[in-house]
């Protein structure tokens, strides 16, 4: 396998040799060194002969061919002779690929200037379908940050296909690189809603903007809902009787969350059901100002409001609930609110 510094077997401009030219990515220069560049003007010319010539001509037409040996094997890329025994090949050309299988690979985490790709890629020996030998080429695994490890999808056995250049000249660089089969697509999705709080919740938020918790009392069951919904979910009747409840309450039950959330001040954080004094249904809110492992069912808490000048019609006015220091409420007093 080539190392990632082994030059450019794929690029289209490799006809020119680079003798003592120092790779600018390779920081070997030190005081006293001089770069001495020998570059053959225009590049060396090579006669490719009939077999390699056929291969390159087919490449220019975006086809891949190999040549059959007397023993029946298909060589890709082809040679004029069977490398196994030196016998001439048959002259029968066989179309192969375009798909192939990665037989082995070497990862290039930081491509050099002469490399065919600017982002991390793999050099791979790829056996094209129908061929008996492997072809060396680059495999592009997609957008990967420089220096990163190879993705787990890069494995021996990976199925790949050539990415052809639009303008082809009859060189191995007519294939820009090989790419894995398409196994997944990204399907963008976005929904945008215009939400209004509605009359009941709007009124509740107006109260919050003034630092007050408002609710409704149901005229059938007498229960106080905070926030109010404008109806009683148990009785199915509209509610209109407004009541104000305290910003103090009791934790009925809670979860200690160890899952990070951008809205949480820290991890772990406690989300608790808080039964505000005067309400008949608990609301879920953040509890802070106390280590998570000291939160208790029955603990008395009070809303911690942000500075008044920051208030608006939003629950964000309340930073969280914090313990008041009062004695806990006995379990029997909250068991019917669980």
């Amino acid at each position, binding site marked *: 396998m080539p190392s990632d510094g082994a030059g450019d077997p794929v690029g289209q401009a490799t006809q020119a040799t680079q003798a003592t030219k120092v790779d600018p990515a390779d920081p070997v220069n030190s005081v006293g060194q001089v770069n001495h560049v020998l570059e053959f003007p225009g590049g060396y010319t090579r006669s490719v002969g009939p077999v390699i010539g056929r291969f390159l001509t087919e490449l220019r037409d975006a086809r891949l061919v190999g040549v059959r040996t007397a023993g029946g094997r298909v060589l890709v890329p082809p040679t004029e002779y069977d490398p196994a025994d030196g016998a001439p090949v048959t002259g029968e050309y066989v179309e192969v690929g375009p798909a192939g299988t990665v037989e082995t690979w070497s990862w290039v985490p930081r491509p050099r200037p002469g490399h065919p790709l600017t982002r991390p890629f793999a050099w791979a020996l790829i056996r094209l379908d129908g061929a008996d030998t492997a072809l060396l080429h680059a495999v592009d695994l997609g957008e990967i940050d420089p220096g990163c490890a190879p993705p787990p999808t890069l494995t021996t056995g990976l199925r790949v296909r050539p990415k052809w250049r639009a303008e082809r000249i009859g060189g191995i660089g007519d294939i820009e690189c090989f790419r894995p089969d398409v196994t997944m697509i990204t399907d963008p999705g976005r929904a945008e809603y215009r939400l209004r709080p509605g009359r009941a919740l709007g009124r509740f938020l107006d109260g919050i903007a003034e630092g007050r918790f408002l609710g409704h009392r149901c005229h059938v069951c007498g229960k106080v809902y905070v926030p109010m919904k404008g109806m009683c979910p148990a009785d199915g009747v509209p509610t209109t009787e407004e009541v104000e409840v305290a910003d103090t309450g009791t934790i009925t*039950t809670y979860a200690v969350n160890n899952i990070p959330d951008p*809205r949480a001040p820290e991890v772990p954080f406690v989300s608790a059901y808080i039964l505000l004094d005067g309400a008949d249904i608990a609301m879920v809110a953040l509890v802070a100002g106390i280590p998570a492992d000291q939160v208790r069912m029955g603990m008395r808490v009070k809303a911690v409001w942000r500075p008044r000048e920051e208030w608006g019609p939003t629950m964000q006015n309340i930073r969280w609930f914090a313990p008041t220091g009062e004695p806990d409420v006995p379990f029997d007093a909250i068991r019917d609110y669980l």
Partner: protein
Amino acid sequence: MGNPCAVIGVGQTRYRTKRLDVSIAGLVREAALRALEDAGLTFADIDAVVMGKAPDLFEGVMMPEAYLADALGARGKPVMRVHTAGSVGGSTGIVAAGLINGGVHDRVLVVAWEKQSESNATWALTTHPPYNASLVVGAGGYFAPHIRAYIRRSGAPDHIGTLVAVKDRRNALKNPYAHLRIPGISREMVEATPMLWEPIRYLETCPSSDGACAMVLASESAARRAPRPPAWVHGAAMRSEPIFFAGRDTVNPRAGRDCAADLYRQAGITEPRDQLDCAEVYVPFSWYEPMWLENLGFCGEGAGWKLTEAGATALAGDIPWNPSGGVLSSNPIGASGLIRFAEAALQVRGLAGEHQIDGARLALGHAYGGGAQFFAMWIVGSAKP
């Protein structure tokens, strides 16, 4: 209940974190074709298709029943989609059974699925709508306080959740379709995993799975021609309740109790623990086993954990719960309820394989969803009711 209805075919996919080898259509076809093969039928024999699926926001496929109709051989046939949150798999089976009970169709294909690897359920369940700042993160964040309330109310010792986590994963080792197969699973392994949403540990939660489940439901005349033994539906019920109302019992929801009462009345069950041979119950967090034991009347209130602790719900117990490994071992959300219904059917058909309960004649399939507010249940038996 109307005309008799029987399960004559069951098909499941293998449940995995990522079924990257198949598209959504390929996934549902895998289950559907297996169910048809079990029933000795082809798509051409099917009169209607009923599909179940959790919220569209999960995979971002809107109206999947329309997109998947031709994949399920439903061209020119009635197709409908059911959606009742996590209980949807169960509700889907019941809607399909209703089409048989009512004499509308003779053979109905039921399919439910989820491809969680193409989605993020916690994201979809935590959409941060404006006007509230409740900070409930995912399903675990919602259920953890109610589990805490159960533990406090019942006085259950801390290790009960661990016992269920171990039991269901041991059962999963006998189920080739199960997603989580953890050889040597033990209490120590479960207890060593971190608390995600205390009191819920990592291994006390369900996995995220890709998978689909399908059943063929048949009328009596169609069931008589089926190649393998049918499972007869003895009762089916659904109930729901609002997620927030004053005085709601979130630990032992009334909708679940009412649903079970209706179901047992239809099936002639008065003592579920004695009369049922096994149950496949929706337990996505291990503590929900003792909670649902009580909600479903297998014992009195506060006693569920004692049944679990005594091993009553183990494979060798007197009332095995989740012989398949349950939701704790495989959770393609939209399909999870239908898998419970299908596994109950497999038990009474005698086709459950290595996790078969010997001689099972009557089995419960159960699903719940939303904030423990939607319930769907059925009882299937080896004998026609």
